[in-house]
């Protein structure tokens, strides 16, 4: 290609694959939200310059291969135990940046004790909780976060709360604990939601860097194959059915200056009392 005498103006890169995301095809199904969440993590860690310091912990579930797709040091954890594995790493490597990545079975079923106690101890780790309300890797069984009435291979007639209870709001439960510095829930249903989730993830990383305590971001995600929908329809399902049950937003932020929610300073009803 020859250039004319004046230098040709260059196109500007508006978006490119983040460096920490390995350039390879993933094993995730078409349209699977794991791909989006992996990418967001790669973007955020890259932006914060955390790639060289991160030790991440992979779950058991579809994302068991996360270490193949993110160019970070990774430990594989037994099912549900990622927060405990992360605790061990965090305690012996105070300078590392520690991230866990878990699905809903990993975190909300078998791993309930580990996530609760890691949060309770206020471990300085950032937990990513990908909640798609189903067990994808094993063929689409019911999860603790499966919606009432949702059909799965182990709730073939639809989840009946009389037998299997209601979906568990893990992040709200964890947010009660003083050790939780930041807890938020986002989704990947559309570009705007993805953008907000990215902000939550970034904040959750900053919370760890500030040493404020435990941070968790729950990401409502999809499972087109498990849900029996096209990827496009699964995003609509997320918006229409999942998000009403699992509201998105910041659930708790103990790093923010304390303000009474929605308070309007009231005029004193009586004359000020004498001091003392």
């Amino acid at each position, binding site marked *: 290609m020859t250039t004319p005498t004046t230098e040709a103006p260059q196109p500007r890169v508006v978006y490119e694959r983040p460096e920490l995301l390995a350039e390879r095809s993933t094993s995730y199904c078409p349209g699977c939200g794991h791909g989006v969440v992996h990418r967001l993590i790669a973007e955020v860690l890259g932006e914060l310059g955390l790639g060289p310091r991160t030790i991440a912990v992979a779950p058991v579930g579809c994302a068991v291969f996360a270490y193949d797709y993110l160019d970070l040091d990774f430990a594989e954890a037994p099912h549900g135990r990622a927060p*405990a594995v992360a605790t*061990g790493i965090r305690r012996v490597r105070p300078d590392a940046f520690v991230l866990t990545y878990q699905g809903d079975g990993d975190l909300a079923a078998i791993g309930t004790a580990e996530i609760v106690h890691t949060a309770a101890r206020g471990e300085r780790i950032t937990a990513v909780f990908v909640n798609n309300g189903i067990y994808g890797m094993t063929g689409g069984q019911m999860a603790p976060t499966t919606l009432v009435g949702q059909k799965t291979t182990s709730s073939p007639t639809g989840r009946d709360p009389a037998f299997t209870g209601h979906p568990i709001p893990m992040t709200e439960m964890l947010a009660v604990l003083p050790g939780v510095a930041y807890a938020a829930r986002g989704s990947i249903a559309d570009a705007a939601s993805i953008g907000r989730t990215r902000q939550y993830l970034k904040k959750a990383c900053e919370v760890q860097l500030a040493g404020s305590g435990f941070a968790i971001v729950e990401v409502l995600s999809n499972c087109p194959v498990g849900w029996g929908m096209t990827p496009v329809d699964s995003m609509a399902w997320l918006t229409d059915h999942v998000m009403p049950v699992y509201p998105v937003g910041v659930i708790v932020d103990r790093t923010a200056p304390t303000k009474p929610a929605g308070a309007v300073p009231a005029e004193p009803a009586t004359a000020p009392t004498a001091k003392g």
Partner: protein
Amino acid sequence: MTAIEQRPAGASTAPAVTTPAAATTAGAATPRTRILRKGNEAIAEAAIRAGCDAYFGYPITPQAELLEWMARRMPEEGRVFVQAESELGAINMALGAAAAGARVMVSSSSPGMSLMAETMSYMAASELPVLVVNVMRGGPGLGSIGPSQGDYFQATKGHGHGDYRVPVLAPSSIGEAMALVADSFEIAERYRTPVILLADGILGQAMEPVEEIYRTPARTAAEWALSGADGRPPRVVKSLHLRPEALEAHNRHLRSKEAAIRDREVRWAGEHLEDADLIIVAYGTSARVARTAIATARASGMKAGLFRPISLWPFPSIQIRSLADRARAFLVVEMSAGQMVEDVRLALDGARPVAFHGRTGGMVPTPGEVVAALHRLDIRTGGTGR
């Protein structure tokens, strides 16, 4: 810190006892001081002096004192201590800390060891060095809090699922337990494997005079440990190998490691084996009971000896087999329904009769029972019945 110390640490509040034997043999040497220490605490302190970076545990009888000693001493030394939410939490914290390159220890007792089984398999498969101390109690189930040797199968046959073995070391005195702690860290790191230190409730709870001799094994650079991919390719510590060919290759690697351990790490001790006619095979506390029984038996003219395995895996099969040339019969004594006895029978391969005497439930065999068992064995195998 020196590798070997012969004086008690300043923090010790236990009384120093000078034994008469040491005083007469000391000569110009520094008088050796001994302290009275509980087994659980002795093991804990030995781990600290051996350079243990991190301890994770959960209270369970009869080893809670080990956790408590660590809770007090590890922060004093600037090391990591976490009482986890369960043994599941503890062993997985250990997995993480070991993956990050630390020298790590966990302790528990039988039911807690069962909880750790899955992660033992993961750690063996991922080749992580971790010291796991099991202070055995009566089982099965919740069982009792009395001593037992009922976890021999669990410890030596791999503990968790899949094809793997881990080295298992069994002390029979508190002093030996202290020394084996350092050896265990060394073996764990040399071969990149979990190691089980198998004690029982008596060793854990008893107090014995011990010399405070400690050893800090040297550290070797862990080229595989996770520290952040700073200027190097990322590392992954994992056990998943989905392609059968790849997993088989990994298994072959684990087997070759196990073969090397078998070649080099067999440990055992013998007493009165030179002229022994009837040999007791026992480990841990059972070996001490056997020792007393043998003294009684020998006093009445019976030529009894003790073969004491110290490494339960790798099991001293060759050594036991070679004893068949001189001994008439073997008696295995265990605080179980008979677990090590199977390995003794395998080792002897039918060459000599093997009898068994055991107690379960937290009961300890008495020397009298063992003498009687020796007597029965003697008669059964054509002896004079003395």
